[in-house]
């Protein structure tokens, strides 16, 4: 989701387009849950109270984000989520019914203090914001192909040589527009057609299928500069193959 696209969705959501709002929420869901967890310094699931505070904050960010501002939307979301959570922690502290964390009360002070301190020094650079955007977009796309980040380790090549070969495979795949079309349409890798066309071994493709899918998606989105840089290193030494 590009910046312009995001702005478009935000504006239409403000006008009462619930679908656009849903789309935004769905897209940024991984970011929200991760941010909430990051601020709370523990793993948060959707059944936790903090995650709903994060969602409400995100919802308010859609309504209140200044589209023309220098700050990115993600940055704004982070700020709002963090503030709401801190407010929530303070309320909890006053009530002193339920502790902020499972930890002792003493640590609670430290926690809140740390949050305020970090808020003051809070300066996320634009580069990281872009990276987060890229990751969120990749995550959404991978979700369509039924690929999860945590699965990719299994499908990752162990040797540099194999990795170079896989990058080559992805590059070859992207060359064929018909294959790419099928790939995006059916949301799966057209292995048999690809093998027929380029003569790669079916076993290799199957073994690294999900990793190849990721590589193809990265190749199809050259605008993800930072993510692409991670896989560009082996492709440079491609000539050695």
């Amino acid at each position, binding site marked *: 989701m590009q910046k312009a696209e995001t702005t478009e969705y935000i504006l239409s959501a403000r006008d009462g387009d619930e679908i656009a709002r849903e789309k935004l929420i769905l897209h940024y869901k991984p970011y929200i849950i*991760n941010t909430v*967890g990051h601020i709370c310094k523990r793993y948060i699931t959707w059944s936790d109270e903090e995650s709903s505070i994060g969602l409400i904050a995100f919802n308010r960010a859609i309504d209140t984000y200044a589209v023309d501002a220098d700050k990115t939307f993600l940055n704004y979301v982070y700020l709002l989520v963090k503030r709401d959570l801190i407010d929530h922690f303070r309320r909890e502290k006053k009530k002193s019914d339920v502790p902020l964390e499972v930890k002792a009360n003493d640590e609670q002070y430290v926690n809140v203090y740390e949050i305020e301190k970090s808020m003051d020094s809070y300066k996320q650079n634009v580069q990281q914001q872009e990276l987060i955007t890229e*990751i969120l977009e*990749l*995550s959404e796309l991978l979700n369509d192909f039924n690929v999860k980040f945590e699965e990719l380790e299994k499908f990752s090549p162990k040797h540099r040589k194999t990795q170079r070969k896989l990058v080559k495979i992805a590059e070859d795949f992207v060359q064929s527009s018909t294959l790419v079309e099928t790939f995006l349409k059916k949301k799966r890798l057209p292995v048999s057609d690809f093998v027929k066309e380029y003569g790669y071994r079916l076993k290799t493709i199957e073994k690294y299928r999900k990793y190849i899918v990721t590589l193809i998606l990265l190749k199809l989105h050259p605008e993800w500069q930072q*993510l692409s840089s991670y896989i560009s*290193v*082996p492709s440079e030494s491609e000539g050695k193959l």
Partner: protein
Amino acid sequence: MKSNTHQGIVVKVTDTKISLLCQDGNFKNIPRSGSEMPQIGEHYTYVEKNIIPMKGTKSLALVAVLFLMIAGYFMRSFMIEENSYLFALDINPSIEIYTNEDLQVTKVDFLNEEGHVIADSLENSKQDINVILEEVVASAVNKNYLSKSEKGMINLTVVSLIDSNHLNTKELQETLDRSLKDNSISADVIVDNGSKQLVEESREENLSINKMQLYKDLKDKGLGADELREKSIASIKKEYNHKTNDQKDIDKNEEKEEEKQQVKKAREDAREKVKEKREEEKELEKEKRDAVKEAREEKRELEKEELEAAKEARKEKKELEKEKREEAKELEEEAREAAKDKHEEGEESGEKAKEAAKEEREKQRELDKEAHEDDEDKEDNDNDEDEYED
């Protein structure tokens, strides 16, 4: 200790792990500790410890163990294959046949020229020991080492090279007997078990094992190693059998003489024993007599002592009586003197004095009587003692 570092950006954080997109383009899941909660897009460094070296050592150990097992197996099989038993055969040709544990022949060695001829004549030497023995006998007959005219001799010594167990020689004996019969040859067959030590000794003396055995047996009878090397076992045995027969006769005579001497000795011993017994009896009688004499002497001495004691007692009594009489006389004299004095003083006092004198006399008489009675008693006792003396 090696360590593996993973550097990359966080793409997802789950309950137990953090998914990283590493700088080499790979994805890596790393374990997440409770307090860690990195944000998506954050740079993250993870140091993995001690995984690769462990894998290395494990596989290395496995390879080493496998190598040892294989090497051990081959070593064992190699050792079994080579020379489990040694069959040393002497007809006149001397050959040594090595077999494995299953008595399959592995090698045939020859120790002399005749043996060389026999060993060459064997077509297939990788067979069962019994087959080879038959072939050797047949070959020996062919080459005239065993002839029908002369009685031959076959010596076979079996040595186990792997352990000290003895092989059953019965079958070997039967095989040799049978093959001799088939070739209608008469020969003495001697099958025996030998030790490794015997093999070593035979190597040192440069003799065949059977000859070494013979050498050991006949060494005391003047058999030289050089003589043994030149002649065949059969000829030496014949030669020394005669010698041994003569030797046997001599031995028998010696034995008879020894027996006679033993009989003589036994008789002498018996006589000496009888003498000793008699002497002992005499000594016992002497002792008895001496004891009786001593007893009598002791008795006499005792009697003498008693007599002396009695005499002394009499002397003492007599002395006592004398003293008493003297005392009585003195008293009477005193009394008379006293009476004379009283007569002079007055009648009354004279009467008193008479009465006192009378009383004193009466006392004196009583004393005398008592003394007499004592004397009589003593005399009686003395009489008794005299009677005893008689």
